[in-house]
Structure formats: structure tokens, C-alpha cells
């Protein structure tokens, strides 16, 4: 009886975890779009048109997306407050926090050893990896990685400090930090740019770049 119940629990838990993982912005193009817009508040239309042409370029697709998720496609693209897209993006944040919680990961991985022999993935770390990989394919990706490493090294830096320490021109530094802010890798406060919380937690991922 207990063994049969355990088999059923494992099956249910495995389906449940699979469904949550499918929502992760590292695994789904749509939630990635929604989550990036959410963490930025709003993003310039031209930036997203280039980054997510499948969603933004075609008028019919754009309109259907706007209706289905509650997205405003004007000069700035944003999630309309209180609509489902906005709510879902908030929930995705909860999923990322759950899938980096050591207690949840160890307990769920231990019960689902056969289904996940490598352990259940840390989705917050995976999302950071995807963003860091994504940087290298961007026009200012190389500069952005240099700037990012410098911000992580010093902890906080202003534009002019980055210009000086990296020997880069102001325009390149600004393009680089804009890209880093878009990907949620750095935040700006009144005293300069600081690494995002994810980056502080999983700093070792930068070493591979």
C-alpha cells in the first residue's frame, strides 16, 4: 500500500515539476519575453523588435499577444498592470526562487532520483546562464561582458569609472550597460551600477566567459 502510494506521489510530483520547469524563462520564449519586460518595467519597441521579432514584428501576432496576455505595444512595450501577463511574470519569479531553494531542490531530487539522476536543475542559475550566453550574440556583447566583469570585480562603478578602468569610450560603455540592464544583470542606483542579486549568488558562471 505504502509502496503504491509512493509510486503515485513520485508520478504526480514529477509531472508537477516538469510543468513548473516548462514555465522557466530559460526554457520558454514567451515567458522569457514576459519576464524580461516585467523586470525592466518597460522596454523600447525597437529593442524588442530586434530581440523578439517573432512576437513584435508582425501586426497580427502582436495584436493577438496584446489581447491574450495584456501587453501594450507602443514606443515602449510594457505589461498592463493587473492583466494575466503581468501576473504570470510575477509567478515566474516565484518559480525561480523555489528552484534555487536548497531545501526544495534536495528533497525533491532525493525523491525523484530516477527521473532526475543529475538532480533537479537550479532554474535561477540556468536563467542566468542563458542570459550570459545570450550576451555574446549581441552587437555590444563583448564590451558588455568586459563591463560586467569589471562591475562584479569592484562591486559598484559609475560610467566614467568604467571608461577609465577599461579604456573604453563613453558610447560603448553606455551601450554595454544598457544591454546589461535589459538582461537584468546589473542594476543602477544613485552611486553607480551594481551586479544583480543572481550574479552575486552565481558569480562563478562569469569565469567561463
Amino acid at each position: 500500500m505504502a509502496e503504491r502510494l509512493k509510486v503515485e506521489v513520485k508520478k504526480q510530483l514529477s509531472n508537477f515539476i516538469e510543468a513548473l520547469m516548462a514555465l522557466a524563462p530559460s526554457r520558454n520564449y514567451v515567458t522569457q519575453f514576459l519576464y524580461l519586460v516585467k523586470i525592466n518595467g518597460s522596454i523600447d519597441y525597437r529593442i524588442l523588435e530586434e530581440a523578439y521579432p517573432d512576437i513584435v514584428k508582425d501586426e497580427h501576432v502582436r495584436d493577438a499577444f496584446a489581447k491574450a496576455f495584456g501587453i501594450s505595444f507602443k514606443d515602449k512595450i510594457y505589461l498592463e498592470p493587473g492583466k494575466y501577463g503581468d501576473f504570470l511574470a510575477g509567478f515566474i519569479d516565484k518559480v525561480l526562487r523555489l528552484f534555487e531553494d536548497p531545501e526544495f531542490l534536495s528533497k525533491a531530487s532525493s525523491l525523484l532520483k530516477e527521473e532526475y539522476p543529475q538532480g533537479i536543475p537550479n532554474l535561477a542559475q540556468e536563467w542566468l546562464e542563458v542570459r550570459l550566453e545570450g550576451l555574446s550574440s549581441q552587437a555590444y556583447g563583448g564590451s558588455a561582458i568586459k563591463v560586467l566583469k569589471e562591475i562584479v570585480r569592484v562591486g559598484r562603478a559609475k560610467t566614467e569609472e568604467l571608461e577609465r578602468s577599461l579604456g573604453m569610450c563613453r558610447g560603448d560603455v553606455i551601450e554595454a550597460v544598457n544591454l546589461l540592464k535589459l538582461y537584468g544583470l546589473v542594476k543602477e542606483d544613485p552611486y553607480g551600477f551594481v551586479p544583480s542579486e543572481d550574479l552575486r549568488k552565481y558569480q562563478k558562471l562569469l569565469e567561463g566567459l
Partner: protein
Amino acid sequence: MSEGSLKDHLINLVNALTNLSPSRNIISQLLLLTPEEQTTLSHSFPELEISEFREILRAMGVLLGDKVKCAEGSFAEALTRLIHKTFDWLDDEYLYFELTIYGSVIMEIMKKMEDVRSSLAKLTGLHIDLIPNPYLEWAKLVIEKLSRDYGKDKVMRFMKSLLSKLPLRGRDRPPSIVDEVGVEVGANPLELKEICELLVYSEGGAENIYRKGSSKHPTGYVSIVHCKYHLDPLLLEESRSEGYYYYVTYVYTARHGETLRRALEEVM
């Protein structure tokens, strides 16, 4: 990120959200039924005996005391909210609020997200009937369960009678669903009360979602009425009169009405 077309990603997203709904998953089902006495839940979910399962629930923020409930701000609490929102979203019943300014007065206007299913059908290339409807799935399961417990006839008559009588109005207090619907159902009062609590309304289950009027002159609240199994088919609107003779009017209107009718037909 894994490769695939936009359509594939949308279908994966809708399927993932559907698989998190209570008709497909006992974890979601259990969370949706909280807060609840642990003894009652253990009877419906013998899986709670498995200690590893209990530990995972705890890690998600489920408090397993005499009463089982979700900790405030926890993942478990966020998931139950997601289930409610997805029920409404994939059934074209999602309500939202827009702030509007008239002169110096700020007003909140309640609206419904329309054409969600048809937009998802366009985007995925699927026929609209193939877009999953977690609310319909759950409603059918709940109606089937209650039909087994109380008899199909009583449950069908109760729901059909309720849906046909809406909107229901009451002055100075909300109308009694049991009184309005009970005569036509023919069940004993205790049974009627139980069916009502499971399907329609439970004590203290009204969730204020919208304040009518303006920032200066509120005139009442609109609430979603929660019931034990969270089919939540009623919206309660409260309106305060102005002037010398002060009174309050309450009106129940239907949520998910068409889908509930369809669920009743399909279960029959």
C-alpha cells in the same frame, strides 16, 4: 533556450499551466482545498502519509499543523493564486482594473480580458475548442464527485436552478442562495447547505476585488465569492444608496456561467 517555433512555445506554456491545474495534479488539488483540517485532508489525500511528500510540501510553504494552510508569501500561496487566475484566463473570465481620472477624482474601472481563447487559437493555429480549459475540467470533476456523494439529480437541479435565477438581488443583506434555490432542489436543509458550501458559497469566502465609485465617494464593493471547491460561480456586487433613506443593495451575478452549463451537460 530550447529551439522551437513561437507556436510550440505557446502550446508548451498553455499545456504547462493546464498541467498545474487541480484537474491534472494532486499537489495543486490539495493546495486549492486549503485551509483545511489535516484529518479531513488526509482522508482525501492518503499521499500525505508519505513523509518525503510532506517535506516537499513544507519546502513549498505548506504549514502542516492541525489545520493545513499556505504560509503567507510562500510559493504554495502563489500557486493557488495562479490556479485561480488561470481558471479565469483560459475561460475568458479574467477581471482586471484600470485607473481612470475624471477631473480631480480617481476612479477604478473593472473590466474583463476578452478574446483570450480566440487570440491563443490564432497564435497557436489550434481550433479554439482545442485550447485547454482547466476550469471546465475541474468543474466536471467537482460535479461528478458531488453527484456521487449527493445524487446526480440534486446536484444538477441545484446548479441549473442557480444559473437560471441569476442575477439575484437582496436589500440590506445578500440573498440566501439556499432559500432561493432550495425549493426546486428538494434536498433536506442540511444537505442543501452542504452542497451550497461546496459548490457556491462558503462562510467568510467573499474576496473584495474592486471598490466601486471613486477615491472620494466609494459606493460599495465587488467580491468574488469563494466556495470549498473553488468553482466560485458568483460575483457579489454591493451598492450603497445616497440620500436620506440609506440602504444597501446586493446583487449576485454569474461567473463562468456558460462553462458551468457545458460542464453540467457533459457530466449528464
